[in-house]
């Protein structure tokens, strides 16, 4: 389908990669912890190692949650853009096939939110 318009109607995407000054936007979502109301949008360099996100970035995002300190990364299951995914921790985001506007959802076994109700 295409837009109904009075003439030629072609525009570049407003959120194309080149507009983010060398970063790419990656969305991260801790499943069953809806105290954080939505997935988080993070501008990250594609060359950043996956491990660095876990050690340096996500704690500052999620550590207000009482269950955060109990997350064990080696038990976590991942989905990348709707496919099951196993990250190579020391490889970069790009080498892990995480692209611009990729979505990473992760489940933490045993941690199901406050009162076990996905909060």
């Amino acid at each position, binding site marked *: *389908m*295409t*837009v*109904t*318009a*009075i003439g030629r*109607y*072609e*525009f*570049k*995407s*407003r*959120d*194309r990669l080149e*507009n*983010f*000054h060398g*970063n790419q*936007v990656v*969305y991260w*979502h801790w*499943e*069953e912890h*809806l*105290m*954080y*109301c*939505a*997935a*988080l*949008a*993070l*501008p990250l360099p594609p060359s950043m190692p996956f491990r660095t996100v876990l050690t340096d970035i996500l704690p*500052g*995002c999620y550590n*207000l949650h*009482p269950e955060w300190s109990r997350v064990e990364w080696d038990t976590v299951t991942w989905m990348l*853009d*709707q496919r099951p995914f196993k990250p190579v921790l020391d490889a970069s985001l790009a080498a892990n096939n995480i*692209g*611009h*506007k*990729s*979505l990473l*959802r992760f489940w933490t076994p045993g941690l199901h939110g*406050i*009162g076990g*109700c*996905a*909060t």
Partner: protein
Amino acid sequence: MNAMPPLPKQRKLSLKERYAHLTRGLGWETTYQPMDKVFPYVSYEGIKIHDWDAWEDPFRLTMDAYWKYQAEKERKLYAVIESFAQNNGHLNITDARYVNALKLFLTGVSPLEYSAHRGYAHVGRHFVGAGPRIACQMQAIDELRHAQTQIHTMSHYNKFFDGLHDPRHMHDRVWYLSVPKSFFEDACSAGPFEFLTAISFSFEYVLTNLLFVPFMSGAAYNGDMATVTFGFSAQSDEARHMTLGLEIIKFMLEQDEANVPIIQKWIDKWFWRGYRLLGLVSMMMDYMLPKRIMSWAEAWEMYFEQAGDALFEDLSRYGIRKPKYHEVASKEKHRLSHEVWSIFYNYTHAAAFHTWMPTEEEMTWLSAKYPDTFDKYYRPRFECWTEMQAEGKRFYNPTLPQLCVTCQIPMGFTEPDDPTTICFRSADYKGERYHFCSDGCKDIFQNEPEKYIQSWLPVHQIYQGNCGGAEVKDVLAWYHLNFGTDNFDYEGSPDQKLWEEWQAQKATNPV
């Protein structure tokens, strides 16, 4: 000097005759330029009109009647506003938390009235038939008056409360205001027939009761007589607008059978766009009114499920069915307001109004109104947040959220059949990924991807460096928000402090 012989007395025209002159007599077939050049936008959407004179406006309002009637209404409204100010009417509201509903209205809705004015002025130029042109032009004037009277009514609150000082500027910049703004720009940048289906029919006819009744009844329940009077003043206009909405739909449907699938597609799109926008109203009803009218779920049942059933039953003879995904909206009615309030609670540090955790009494009300969802999914979250706040660690989400490309709301809505899992939908277009909060928003994107790839998503704009800086403080300055007064929790806000001072004074000086 010869006296002039008296003119023969002219018979006064009837209202019907005057209306006929206005809407038929003033139209003509152009000859210097071909009609399709004078009216260049009426055919490209694919809507076929064979007989513009088949348009009938049940109100048959003429301009002189319009001026006279509206002037009377406004004289009354301004008298009430004046007396509200002189009597310090703001002291009689139930609680200062109520004013936050007005902040949302003034920054989110009043600018839409102005956008509607522009939209109707535009289409009021571009229809071939003089009947619909006149109806649209009158509505354009109505909408301009509404924007103006709302600003005048609420400006009284601006003298005392924070966050009301620059609604027009905020509307163009503040992250959550991109939701109503992009909704209306989507409609205004469509063709004239889609615009009317979007605003006159889907919004004014199908959904407007869910916007105006809660706000105006909410004002009445909470002692805000100025806003109530504004509501009454606008009510007769709204009735006319709703009629226009139904008229235009029936007119298009009756003109040509080929119009039916086009209109159905628009109804599907604009139902979902409008419903997502009303998420803001749902949280206003269930959380922001100190004295509540009814729950969002009850309002949805009354104003959409019941009224909508009758409407779409009536339209079924043209081959129109209920809008796609209406059943998803009904599934969401038991959680919508809680999810939206959670979103705003997360990001109140970047908002022009305050949020707060409901009191125990309010939670009891929520449990009673939402027996299947509130205690199970939301009460534990709210109790945790309340405890964190009591420990001096009020929860604010430090990271910006993912937004839906279509409705632009943070992606906080859950799967239609699972309130514990966020609903993620995505699509690829020309090698780039796009994310949506629902199948409704994804369909809208896929029908016209070229339009939505241009979405001005506030989170991405901040990351691109287009919003005044990288820190919250910089962005708020760019929004014209006053850091530390307009934003953060109601608890501890200057609004709360002032209100409590007034209450203390009242207690010591009983009148």
